[in-house]
């Protein structure tokens, strides 16, 4: 019960202080929105808007979670308020969970921003919502952990941004959302198979545009594996780097 109180209050504080702050809300909405509009204008209706949806969703999650976590954690670390969390009688695992849960929820909400806009423009009745939701949640969790991993590895907020972009852009273009994996140059394909987003994107493609390369169970299993590994790495890095 005591642990739950601490967990819950860390989560609520982050949501109130960071995720619900006006600039972040608008960032979460404006970025996917402007990207959607850009694509619609560029493709001028030839291609089905629904084809863009998986990519947009994945991008919204990836950018929302990683940047928020990396920035807020480096910020708290620099102002030393993060020490308060390390001083609390809660385990590092609970602390990691509380910290990433806010970002995960933020990512999930961001994912559905393009869906809402798409719903006005196209018929979404063919979408398999349960797979979509599972895919979104798994992408959000892996992205959040990746953001935390970035946050643990740097000291300054701008470094966090740079390092997360270093991961994010290649990941977006190698995950099969914008360029199908079989059309990637042969040397890039193995990299693509090592990215969690590849499997999450495949789930979204399957659910929304009914095109996929992997078995859904395989995708889920791989994503879970990524989650476990990332979680372990985050915990280990926090113990190693932050408890000096």
């Amino acid at each position: 019960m005591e642990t739950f109180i601490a967990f819950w209050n860390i989560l609520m504080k982050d949501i109130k202080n960071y995720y619900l702050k006006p600039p972040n809300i608008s960032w979460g909405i404006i970025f996917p929105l402007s990207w959607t509009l850009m694509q619609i204008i560029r493709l001028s209706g030839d291609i089905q808007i629904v084809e863009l949806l998986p990519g947009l969703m994945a991008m919204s999650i990836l950018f929302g979670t990683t940047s928020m976590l990396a920035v807020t954690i480096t910020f708290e670390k620099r102002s030393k308020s993060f020490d308060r969390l390390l001083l609390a009688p809660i385990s590092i695992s609970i602390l990691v969970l509380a910290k990433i849960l806010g970002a995960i929820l933020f990512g999930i909400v961001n994912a559905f921003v393009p869906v809402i806009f798409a719903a006005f423009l196209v018929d979404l009745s063919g979408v398999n919502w349960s797979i979509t939701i599972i895919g979104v949640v798994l992408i959000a969790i892996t992205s959040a952990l990746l953001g935390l991993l970035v946050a643990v590895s740097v000291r300054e907020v701008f470094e966090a941004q740079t390092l997360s972009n270093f991961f994010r852009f290649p990941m977006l273009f190698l995950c099969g959302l914008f360029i199908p994996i079989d059309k990637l140059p042969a040397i890039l394909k193995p990299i693509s198979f090592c990215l969690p987003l590849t499997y999450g994107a495949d789930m979204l493609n399957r659910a929304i545009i009914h095109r996929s390369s992997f078995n859904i169970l395989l995708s889920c299993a791989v994503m879970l594996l990524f989650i476990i590994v990332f979680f372990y790495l985050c915990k280990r890095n926090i113990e190693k780097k932050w408890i000096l």
Partner: protein
Amino acid sequence: MEIVKIANLKKAYGDLQAVKGISFSIKQGEIFGLLGPNGAGKTSTINMLIGLSRPSGGSIVIDGMDAIKEIKMTQRIIGVIPDENNLYGEMSGFDNLCFCASLYGIGKKEREKRAMELLKQFGLTDAANRPFRTYSKGMKRKLTIAAGLIHDPKILFLDEPTTGIDVESTRQIRNLILSLKEQGRTILMTTHYIEEAERICDRIAFIVKGEIVRMGTVTELMESVEHEYRIKLQLDSSIIELKEELENNFPSCKIEVLEQNSCLLISEERMPLSPILQLLDGKGISVYEAKEIKPSLEDVFVKITGIHVSNLEKEKVMK
């Protein structure tokens, strides 16, 4: 009873030996002070005790628990006031305190009650709903101390509680530390103000370059260095002509004539005063006052550490 026991505690940052195997114990209910210049290793020591840093060697026992292996257990009973005011700038004073309480699993009603009480005790009730970042330095310091007390800890770690704040807040904070001791709490504090350590600590350890060079009560520290006895006499006239005669009569005693009809008697050992007073009386000189001039803790600190107090002050300004 010894509630904090550390033995041969070491901390290295790469090649730098910040703490070089220090040992000390803190008795329940006392205020123990670590006094030393900047960079002496005070914060490094505290960080190891509270679990923010891993020792390179040695042991820490807090309230019977191994504070290195079972740090999450010991963290329940310790309160920490770090050297920087690290509360959340955007949150109000009240919300900050409630949040800190929640980290210790304290329920909503109870934490709001405690937050209000502490705000009142620290004279911050009027500022309760203002964001922390709008507070003055002294107010920030007080709220940071309040946050360290919110879960009613048995043992408190205060890192430079009064560095860089105004005189009035400093006075209030020092009194507060004394009242915390009266409530039965055990306190470890660091400081580089000698007079602060002298005034409020029951025992003091001088720490320099990662080593404890001397430790004890103020009286013990004073007695631990050899010093001359100095008696200041206040007379009704100058004794400049009598200096030689006095020194000849009392060879173990040196006389220093001061302004305004006073003089200093300096001797290696304690010496009886009445023969001197009698001699002066015979010369028709009256003695109105005789008092011992004791060396200050400052003198003792300088003698033991070789560090000049002005250097302590200089480093403080730089900070």
